[in-house]
């Protein structure tokens, strides 16, 4: 018996987003392990290469193969029907679906998609996949609640070597000065409560340090209403130093982390929160609201915010900027935590799953 293949499938692969990055990384790891591995999707981002159309999967499909289904949004009946028809062993890698309530009044499309995604998870995917893995324990609970029997955790696989490229000079030139740069990284989405980050910054900027800026790093595409709302809030508060970067390239992202003094997230729903790992990597002290998967990802590193007391948060930002001892200690602890997410370690976990749970399972 020849060696089985391990492929991945998802409705879409986007450039630079967490799931797209992980899919690419998993493929690399699997290839390194010696497996034949490809990514099959319905919609391919034009910037990405070496990605296959899902319809082509039929060519390699085999009961011995392992097909990893990523799930973060709606699949659609067409793709689900296709997957269902395949004889391969199917493994779910669940990235979490944002509760639709967050998109209410902001994006009916997202509200609709997430509702469908949850429905699919509970009623269809559950019956398709053989093993369900989640990127965090928090997400695994979702799977258990949805009725999945065989579940596990495979933390987010990240290759930090990808950051070893030349950062974008323009960003560094623009923002590398005596100003304190407060970073908020991630898609501009209502669940991430960027508005609360703006409120924290309002206090810090207005009452503590006017020579400071808030950099909102992430795409706001498809979130026009929320983006408008945030702009309105900034306008009403009379804030001048708040910048939306929009969608950016990797080198630009690196630059923002390089010039960032404090990383802040007030998000109320995260399945994993990859920017926390990035902040750890770039040694930016983390200040994060204690919700969903965040404390788990931080694993005791960084600073958790229990109450949204904007005045106190602003004061703590100030301490993190001014108290070098505190700052170094936080960064040190973050760096220790980062080892937990090393590529080798996560790849090892994946390998273990392949060798045990995936291998032993029979295709449904």
């Amino acid at each position, binding site marked *: 018996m020849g060696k089985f293949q391990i492929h991945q499938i998802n409705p879409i692969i986007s450039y630079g987003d967490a799931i797209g990055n992980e899919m690419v990384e998993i493929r690399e790891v699997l290839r390194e392990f010696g497996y034949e591995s490809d990514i099959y999707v319905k919609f391919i981002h034009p910037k990405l290469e070496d990605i296959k159309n*899902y*319809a*082509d*999967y*039929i060519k390699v499909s085999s009961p011995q193969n392992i097909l990893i289904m990523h799930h973060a949004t709606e699949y659609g009946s067409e793709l689900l029907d*296709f997957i269902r028809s395949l004889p391969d062993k199917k493994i779910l890698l669940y990235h979490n679906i944002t509760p639709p309530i967050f998109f*209410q*009044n*902001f994006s*009916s499309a997202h509200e609709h998609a997430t509702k469908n995604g949850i429905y699919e998870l509970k009623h269809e995917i559950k019956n398709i996949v053989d093993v369900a893995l989640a990127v965090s324990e928090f997400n695994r609970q979702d799977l258990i609640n949805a009725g999945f029997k065989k579940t596990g955790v495979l933390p987010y696989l990240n290759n930090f070597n990808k950051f070893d490229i030349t950062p974008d000079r323009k960003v560094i030139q623009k923002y590398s000065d005596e100003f304190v740069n407060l970073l908020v990284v991630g898609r501009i989405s209502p669940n991430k409560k960027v*508005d609360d980050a703006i*409120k924290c910054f309002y*206090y810090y900027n207005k*009452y*503590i340090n006017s020579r400071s800026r808030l950099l909102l790093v992430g795409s706001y595409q498809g979130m026009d*209403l929320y983006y408008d*709302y945030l702009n*309105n*809030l900034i306008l*009403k*508060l009379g804030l001048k130093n708040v910048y939306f970067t929009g969608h950016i390239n990797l080198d630009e992202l690196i630059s923002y982390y390089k010039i960032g003094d404090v990383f802040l997230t007030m998000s109320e729903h995260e399945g994993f929160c990859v920017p926390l790992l990035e902040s750890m990597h770039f040694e930016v002290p983390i200040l994060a609201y*204690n919700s969903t998967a965040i404390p788990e990802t931080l694993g*005791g*590193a960084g*600073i*958790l*915010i*229990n*109450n949204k*007391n*904007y*005045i*106190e*948060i602003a*004061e*703590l930002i*100030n*301490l993190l900027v001014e108290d070098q001892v*505190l700052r170094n*200690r*936080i960064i040190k*602890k973050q760096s220790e935590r980062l080892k937990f997410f090393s590529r080798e370690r996560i790849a090892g976990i994946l390998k273990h799953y392949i060798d045990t749970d995936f291998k032993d399972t029979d295709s449904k």
Partner: protein
Amino acid sequence: MDTFEIKDEEINVEEIMDKIRENIKKRKECGIYKNESREEVEQVFSEISSPREIIPQEPETINSSYDIRNSSYSISSHRPVLGKFLIKGRKLVHGEVRRYVDPALQKQSELNSNLANLLSDTKERVSSYYNEIEQLKTDIEKLECENRTLKSKIEQLNSEAKKLNIESEQLKSEIIPNIKKEMESIVSKKIELSVSKEVESVISAIDLDLDNKAWLSRILETRIPKEYKQVTNFPTTTDSEINYYVFEEKFRGPRENILKHFAGFIDYFANCTNVLDIGCGRGEFLELARDRGINARGIDVNEDMINFCKSKGLSVELKDAIEALCGIDDKSLDGIFISQVVEHLSPDYLISMLNLCNRKMKYGFYIIIETVNPLSLFSFANFYIDLSHVKPVHPETLKFLLNTTGFRDIETKFSSPVPSEIKLQKLPDLEGLAEKSRLLVGICNQNIDMINNALYGAQDYAIIGKK
């Protein structure tokens, strides 16, 4: 639960929290945070995040999504061979379904379109109502604010009124007794003062009397010849002159009475600057003139009188009337007063004096000559009490003499009435008298009046003439 959580044994979260609280306190003390408490901050943010700010579905979104017809649906298949048939089959089914579903979707889309328009219109209306409500709210706030100010003012006024009430009560209870006490003390002081003034005036009158008496005794002493001074037990009256001062004091009455009597004449000399009192006597007229600011001087032939007047600081000379008048420039006097003098003169002397008086006076000024009234039997009978009286002068005579010397507007004034107790008493008009008796009483009383006038007429008269 602390706001922050740091799972690091080397970091003391409590210390960090203390530091944060201390910094906040400092900023509040510096006035940086002002009075913004967490609740107030939430209020600020919630205002910004009010539902109006988060517009659930902008009209653009509604307008772009009213058409629910699915135009993006495409039929494809991943199966290489079977796929073609599957696509054809699905297209057939799709066509059939569309034939049935499309009209319904069309209707629904139209309805959606209308609803979108309606919503857009409603939104505009709501927006204008909202503005109106906001305006009304601000108006109400303004009114409430004004109302509060008025209330506080009223309260302030009330409290001030209360304070005033209390203060007035205090004043009543505290000050009024004090005022009473002070009033009593002032009244008692005033009484003391007035008593002391009266005492002083009595004392000064006594002093004056004593002075006068002492002066008189000194005069009298000078007249006693040296050889007799040693034998005071034998007073004789070898000196033919009588002491006219003493005589006047006895028969003419005290100076105070004379001063009052002359007050009736002084107005004729108002504002005059050169008045001559011929026969000034004890200087009562001169004293009165001085008090009124009239410049007057006197002459008299009696040395005692002159000395007395000088002791009073009056301007007097011991001179005979004609001698004095001759020494005065013509038309220089603006007033002449001659009281109780003409009855002492001979007719020639009187006429010469009156002529001189006219000559020495300025035009338009007054001469007043007062003398004993011979028309009253009472004063005529007493005329010769004064030994120096030569003859009484009839009022008409004096009037005539003045007239002939060149004076005009001559008038006669009678004065010094006889006290009524000396006069004949009238019959009383008793009740119950018959009409005849009453008539008789009336006639009798008329007669008594006539007799009284003849017997007890005014004791003096004065002729006043103007040059």
